[in-house]
């Protein structure tokens, strides 16, 4: 997995609450059997004026110039500012894949839907929860100043604004450790194989009907 230590980049404000994963990557693009290549269809229905099809070249499609990620000043954004309950809806991991493929490394919002939040960490993407006032402040600043950049320092757990102000954020220590080091969860879990086998031996005694039934 890609690691995440410190990222500095343009922040783009997506000012709406309850952005769902259907919006982040509409279902017609879920038909791919790969993990990459979703970037051009990130926010497809908001970004383009026509209806997107899988395997289509997006270069010539009519853009919705009002959409934030289409505006010149936010080109190359690495940080997405969002509102409450970001990533709700379907569990599709295609949502963080699409954000990552587009170049977003971090999403800042007052709250996230649980599955999306979890999926981000598996893909080197950092979701940061700040309180409503802090998020409001960032929205104001980003809209006021062209070229506004944020620095995310995962080690120190702070978001640094251009004025040098720091906003602290929480992150679970296990997830932080994996993200900083780009560790693969499966490899880590397999180090506990003996525990898993012990559990299975015990469980087979207690609930034998949960074993060998599906054949």
């Amino acid at each position, binding site marked *: 997995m890609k690691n995440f230590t410190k990222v500095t980049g343009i922040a783009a404000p997506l000012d709406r609450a309850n952005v769902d994963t259907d919006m982040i990557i509409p279902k017609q693009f879920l*038909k791919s059997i*790969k993990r990459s290549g979703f970037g051009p269809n990130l926010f497809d229905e908001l970004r383009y004026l026509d*209806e997107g099809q899988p395997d289509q070249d997006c270069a010539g499609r009519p853009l919705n110039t009002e959409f934030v990620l289409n505006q010149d000043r936010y080109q190359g954004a690495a940080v997405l500012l969002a509102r409450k309950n970001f990533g*709700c*809806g379907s*569990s*599709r991991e295609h949502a963080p894949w699409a954000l990552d493929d587009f170049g977003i490394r971090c999403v800042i919002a007052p709250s996230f839907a*649980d599955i999306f939040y979890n999926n981000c960490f598996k893909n080197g993407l950092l979701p940061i929860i700040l309180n409503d006032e802090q998020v409001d402040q960032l929205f104001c600043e980003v809209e006021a100043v062209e070229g506004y950049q944020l620095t995310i320092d995962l080690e120190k757990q702070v978001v640094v604004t251009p004025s040098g102000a720091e906003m602290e954020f929480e992150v679970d220590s296990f997830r932080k450790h994996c993200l900083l080091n780009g560790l693969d969860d499966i490899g880590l879990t397999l180090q506990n194989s003996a*525990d898993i086998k012990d559990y299975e031996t015990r469980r087979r005694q207690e609930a034998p009907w949960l074993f060998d*039934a599906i054949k």
Partner: protein
Amino acid sequence: MASKTLYDKLWDQHLVRQNEDGSALIYIDRQILHEVTSPQAFEGLRLAGRKLWRIDANLATPDHNVPTTERAGGVGLIVDPVSRIQVQTLDDNCDDFGVVEFKMNDTRQGIVHVVGPEQGMTLPGSTVVCGDSHTSTHGAFGALAHGIGTSEVEHVMATQCLIAKKMKNMLVRVDGLLGVGVTAKDVVLHIIGVIGTAGGNGCAIEFGGEAIRSISMEGRMTICNMAIEAGARVGLVAVDQTTIDYFKGRPFSPTEAQWDAAATAWKGLVSDDDAEFDTVVVIKAEDIIPQVTWGTSPEMVVDVTATVPNPEKESDPTKADGIRRALQYMGLNADQKITDIQLDRVFIGSCTNSRIEDLRAAADVVKGRQVASTIKQALVVPGSGLVKAQAEKEGLDKIFVEAGLEWREPGCSMCLAMNPDKLGSGEHCASTSNRNFEGRQGFGGRTHLVSPAMAAAAAVTGHFVDVRELMSS
């Protein structure tokens, strides 16, 4: 011993390892696989040279992409090439890894959340995961069940475990009994209207109270199915005799020799009387009447007798803005009566409402009536091949077809429109599914979530109507 909630008990029973940093390794008894969220997981295993930890914990079936029209020609004849590749890839992966799969034309094929319980794959006291957020459905049986992402699907395949953090406990208690014509779908839509789509974030919601106890297993599944729409990955209902009876004689249920021990163990799957919940919400069953969503989030829901909200009357500016945006997308006017909303299509199906009881309720309403001439299409899509067979045995298919509805093959269909069943731009649909997000049922489509009986009533009148009026007439 300290008292525990049902969720606490399920968590404790599956704890393999508790790490100091608060994360834990929990054991997964069952994983259900479908074609959309599994290919990258199988690919990951292959690339790392890993095997499945326990083949007999997995069951697969294609559902999201399969056509619901004639499909005797098999996978090779799926028209959309991208869908075809995905369904074929699932077949190939299951063959390669030795996973039991109900392939497209197997009568046991269907929507993952209908098939799992129907087969007795989901059992009380088990942990169930699937790369699909509506896995919360299986919590209706006192199972700890939740949706996961594709990386986690691969993690479970390779380790039979999930790295997890304990959620908070929330109880939603529905006191009293439901009125005639009020269904499980109305209950859960009403709950979401009360607590909001983020109301259950970070929580496992247990649904309890007299109303829930009196609801069938099918209805409890409908309620837990939409726990995710209230922000909770996990929905739960405590085990009672209704739960235990459901599993008698199902293919993957405990054998006769194991049955008594299993049933005894299951009886303990209830929250202790004095267990403490972090949040408790109490709702009166008598306050619930048939519900209709008017907007683009499941929390944008009102009684069928009400009107569409007016943003001018909303004091919170963010909410007012949300209402305005939704009204515009939905093509509705503030203060318009719900019963004045004209519909173009009707969809009866999805993992929320495609089980036999749902089909019976819809058939009851359309029997002897005709689909309104203004309705372009009314689809009935059973949740599995076995539901379809049962419905046909009861003659429900004939009732639907005579009334002018289409009777289809099982699958997700117009719930998310990954197959050819979809809404045209601007069309209004009365749908028994679970999400009314923008574009969910087709680009520009306008979804209104309702119960099967309400959808059937909309089909025969062409607009929303309180189904209780049709019942008394």
